[in-house]
């Protein structure tokens, strides 16, 4: 096969393409404007806004119990990783895993880790006490959840600073904790 000729053929066909471009662009612009017009009429901007994840209310509002645990201290939302399924099919058994970024030395370690729930009749799920004898501030367990809600992990460090993470869980089959 004559590759040189193939190349020439390609080059020859290029001007045809560039001639066609302005037309294509014109059509794209028209389509874009039509789409924008339609979006304006249908109120599309509000739909786009709804796709942006809605902001979670402050943690103290989600779990009022936090105020008593922290005694009003400032809670920073980092260093804590809360792993929980987005959709829990069974509220009686939801696997949850929490880890806190900490060196776990004698002078700097995670003292206490609280697992809190927004809608359970008893918001305190568990209170875990770590020591420097723990290799890492990490816990995996299985919890009960009464309905779709936020789950919050609150960690108190040895310097009494508070760190937290939260996650929203959708529960299909609720654990009937309050006999409803």
């Amino acid at each position, binding site marked *: 096969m004559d590759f040189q000729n193939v190349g020439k053929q390609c080059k020859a066909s290029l001007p045809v393409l560039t001639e066609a471009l302005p037309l294509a662009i014109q059509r794209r612009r028209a389509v874009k404007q039509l789409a924008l017009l339609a979006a304006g009429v249908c109120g599309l901007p509000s739909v786009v806004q709804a796709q942006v994840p809605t902001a979670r209310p402050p943690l103290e509002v989600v779990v009022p119990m936090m105020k008593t645990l922290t005694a009003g201290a400032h809670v920073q939302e980092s260093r804590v990783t809360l792993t929980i399924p987005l959709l829990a099919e069974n509220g*009686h058994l939801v696997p949850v895993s929490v880890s806190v970024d900490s060196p776990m030395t004698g002078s700097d370690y995670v003292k206490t880790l609280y697992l809190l729930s927004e809608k359970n009749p008893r918001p*305190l*799920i*568990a209170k875990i006490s770590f020591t420097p004898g*723990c290799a890492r501030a*990490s816990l995996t*367990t299985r*919890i*009960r959840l009464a309905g779709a809600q936020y789950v919050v992990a609150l960690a108190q460090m040895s310097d009494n600073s508070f760190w937290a993470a939260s996650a929203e869980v959708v529960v299909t089959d609720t654990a009937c904790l309050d006999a409803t």
Partner: protein
Amino acid sequence: MSVAKISLPKSVNRGESVAVRVAIQHPMETGYRVDNKGKLILKNTVREMNCLYNGALVFSAEMGSGIAANPYLLFYLVAKDSGLIQLNWVDDAGVKGTASALLTVV
């Protein structure tokens, strides 16, 4: 009567982290359920669980009805010396339980 099991790796190197898996057989009654005669079943959960490593307290957990039945916990300890990992727990009915496992550090 509740039974507990501690799962540990066969052996660990000194200074490394050891995954300790604990499973306690317990109904973790919430106190919101009724029996077949309509009588409320009393809340009975494993209230507190302590983990001792060679006699020193290294980890403890206070649990409530938010922990699923047959509580399972996974946590990590620093392997210092070969020895006993002991679990002590007590539930709301005052029933105490204990379990232990030997950790081999090489």
